[in-house]
């Protein structure tokens, strides 16, 4: 009975989405505003029904209602409440339902943000969103139905995969990832609307920018949270392994980052309209590709692919969306004429272009390395993967170049400038570059790419700081304002959008430094220890002091207590453990990390043998890893600042420029 209420809500949302899509496109082709109103109502209807379906599932999980098939599949009475809630996205059917829920929120907010100033782009965008919504509602109603009715209601369920119960990050990471993935639907719909109506008005471009920044910010956090989760849970000691799932989250972030930048060039110069739209569309298609790769089971086995019912459906949607987008781009892109010629030479315009090409290059490199094994397996029936050295060797130089452009670009003025001007702007930042280089050499770093990266990082850090504070410094000079007052104007006044970009850049520079140093300058050691034995790594001395036990409702843990000393100073004990879940056969390790600003000490128990009193220990010293988490917070703040500046300030910028006024419809 309870399951059928869920099914009803899903069907209602499917009905609203499909009906609304038809109404929206009918409004567009017949130029009837009354149909647009119907489409808007249908969009809200979809959102409400889909949102309620999600709430209904959460209620089912909390009430241990095993008559709902999904609850019977992942629920368990013994679970803590937070695990019950996050079970919503812990398995395939629920995660697609959750996708629908996030899409519901996005579509409701985006529909509200569209005004009559958007003209006929309004029904075109709503129609595009609702076509996507129809597909996902169909997926939930059919192939991935989570509200199946269980006839023989079990008394308890197995609980979700223990790897997912093992860390509280599992509660945070998927919402961020979905916030990024699903959110790409909104700019995609706006890009399609621009192509369908044949013009990218300043109003529409502003909406495009805002709608791109929201998922970009979520995705930035999500990509790194995924790495953090791997670091804190998987126990191999790193945060990034270039595995297909990680790549799937990175790919749309790369094109999204390119799109956010090329949109600036489009906005300021009126150029690259088709290119910006292509990047937005690519970002959306890559999220669908990522969903296909991670949800169809294709990366484990071709069998799982043919057995999985949603894999082919998602693939069909991906193919349809790709073909439709390419066709639309091909037919319509010529309508989006540039307003100016692109500036050539050493200007900021060129730097934007270089940034875009580098990000696209990065995307292709990762994309090819990720899908290559699939193609080989399909053609030659050989199983293989592309090794980490490929990704490292290809992406490190591209990454270093991106860092370089991030420094040089903002140092360059818009448009052309004299040689003296260029020297004056480009040379001084090298000072901090050399300072960083010297610091790295003193620290003992000898890896060439790390040194190059750190030099660029110093250069870019100088430019970023200098440019971020420049308006404030100018005001201090001419208005004799205090520093804080001048800075506050940039954060809370019309300069916020500019500030946001440099905050994001500061985060990116920090991330570059953290990644370059942590991935090349760490140390590790694996060793078996008997109780009372010690080992040393670097300045750390580790003693296996004994075995402890812990009981929780859903798991029992065997803990190895490891006494840690650094240079003879007692730092207390770390407790890597093995967890045995009540509902699962296998035990799973959880590493223990002593986090520091300079370096992390990372202990992972490979095995704990209580009979012989031995522990197999993996020990790593990971420098600067915590700065990657800090960098992400800074980048996200930059994203949020930009997001909450663009609505008002973006229009102010528009008003000051020599743009054609939009014809009133």
């Amino acid at each position: 009975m309870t399951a059928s209420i869920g099914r009803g809500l899903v069907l209602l949302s499917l009905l609203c989405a499909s009906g609304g899509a038809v109404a929206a496109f009918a409004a567009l082709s017949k130029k009837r505003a009354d149909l647009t109103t119907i489409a808007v109502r249908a969009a809200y209807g979809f959102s409400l029904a889909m949102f309620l379906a999600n709430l209904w599932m959460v209620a089912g999980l909390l009430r241990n209602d095993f008559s709902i098939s999904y609850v019977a599949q992942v629920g368990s009475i013994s679970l803590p409440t937070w695990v019950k809630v996050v079970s919503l996205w812990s398995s395939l059917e629920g995660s697609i339902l959750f996708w629908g829920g996030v899409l519901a929120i996005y579509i409701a907010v985006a529909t509200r943000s569209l005004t009559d100033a958007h003209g006929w782009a309004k029904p075109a965008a709503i129609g595009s969103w609702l076509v996507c919504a129809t597909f996902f509602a169909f997926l939930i109603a059919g192939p991935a139905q989570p509200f199946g009715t269980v006839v023989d209601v079990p008394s308890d369920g197995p609980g979700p995969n223990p790897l997912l119960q093992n860390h509280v990050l599992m509660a945070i990471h998927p919402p961020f990832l979905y916030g990024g993935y699903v959110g790409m639907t909104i700019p995609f719909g706006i890009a399609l609307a621009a192509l369908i109506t044949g013009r990218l008005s300043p109003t529409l471009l502003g909406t495009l920018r805002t709608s791109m920044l929201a998922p970009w910010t979520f995705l930035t956090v999500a990509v790194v949270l995924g790495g953090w989760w791997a670091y804190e849970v998987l126990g191999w000691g790193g945060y990034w392994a270039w595995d297909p799932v990680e790549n799937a989250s990175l790919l749309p972030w790369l094109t999204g980052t390119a799109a956010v930048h090329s949109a600036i060039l489009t906005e300021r110069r009126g150029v690259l309209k088709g290119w910006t739209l292509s990047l937005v569309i690519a970002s959306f298609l890559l999220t669908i590709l990522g969903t296909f790769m991670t949800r169809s089971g294709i990366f484990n086995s071709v069998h799982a692919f043919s057995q999985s019912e949603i894999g082919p459906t998602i693939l069909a949607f991906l193919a349809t969306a790709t073909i439709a987008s390419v066709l639309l781009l091909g037919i319509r892109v010529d309508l989006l004429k540039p307003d100016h010629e692109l500036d050539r030479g050493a200007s900021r315009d060129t730097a934007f272009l270089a940034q875009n090409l580098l990000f696209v290059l990065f995307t292709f490199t990762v994309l090819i390395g990720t899908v290559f094994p699939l193609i080989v397996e399909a053609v030659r029936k050989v199983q293989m993967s592309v090794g980490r050295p490929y990704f490292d060797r290809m992406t490190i130089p591209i990454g270093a170049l991106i860092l370089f452009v991030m420094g040089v670009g903002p140092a360059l003025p818009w448009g052309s400038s004299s040689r003296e001007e260029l020297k004056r702007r480009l040379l001084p930042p090298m000072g901090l570059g050399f300072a960083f280089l010297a610091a790295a050499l003193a620290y003992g770093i000898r890896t060439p790419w790390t040194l190059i990266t750190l030099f660029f990082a110093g250069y870019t850090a100088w430019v970023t700081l200098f440019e971020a504070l420049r308006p404030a410094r100018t005001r201090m000079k001419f208005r004799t304002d205090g520093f804080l007052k001048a800075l506050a104007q940039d954060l809370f006044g019309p300069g916020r959008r500019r500030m946001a970009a440099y905050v994001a850049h500061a985060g990116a520079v920090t991330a570059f430094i953290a990644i370059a140093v942590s991935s090349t300058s760490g140390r590790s050691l694996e060793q078996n220890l008997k109780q009372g034995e010690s080992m040393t790594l670097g300045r750390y001395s580790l003693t296996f002091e004994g075995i402890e036990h812990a009981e929780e409702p859903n798991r029992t843990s065997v803990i190895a207590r490891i006494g840690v000393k650094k240079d003879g100073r007692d730092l207390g004990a770390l407790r890597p453990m093995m967890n045995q879940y009540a509902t699962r056969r296998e035990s799973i390790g959880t590493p223990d990390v002593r986090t520091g600003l300079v370096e992390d000490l990372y202990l992972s128990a490979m095995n704990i043998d209580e009979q012989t009193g031995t522990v197999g220990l993996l020990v790593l010293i990971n420098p600067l890893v915590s700065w990657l988490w800090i960098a992400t917070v800074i980048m996200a703040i930059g994203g949020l600042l930009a997001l909450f500046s663009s609505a008002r300030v973006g229009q102010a910028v528009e008003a000051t420029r020599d743009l054609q006024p939009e014809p009133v419809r």
Partner: protein
Amino acid sequence: MSSNDGKKRVALALGACAFAGTLLYFVVGGIGNNLVYYWGPTEVLAAGPKAQGASIRLGGLVEAGSIKKGEGSNMSFTVTDGKKSLPVRCTSVPPQMFREGIGVVVEGTVARDGVFESHRLMVSHGNEYRAPNDPAAVNLKKLMESTEGLAPSDKK
């Protein structure tokens, strides 16, 4: 369209092609040198000397009575797929579940003396995976997919 525009387009297209070609060359070359093969003992032995130095993920069952512990974390055992078996030297600390008869995946390469040298040992612990009574029934794909660290689909 003026002829100047046409020339520009041709130049642009040529430039794009050259760019794409160079990229493809580097990418394909980079991939070709960095492939990791998912093989069982039969495939490794069939590859012969080609297997030496190649990156391989060897999957199979730990043969009964073959585990020998050495100095420190050194250890040797034999991996079998029911048809052929291959001796393995391993320097990594074995995971908790490691024992005779269990499905494992070891990462490494074949040394000159024909022994598989590994620096990474992973144990299969999927929910459905059971070490089969009939070792001939080892399904390499199922094994790889149920091995921790190899099954990233666990990760959302």
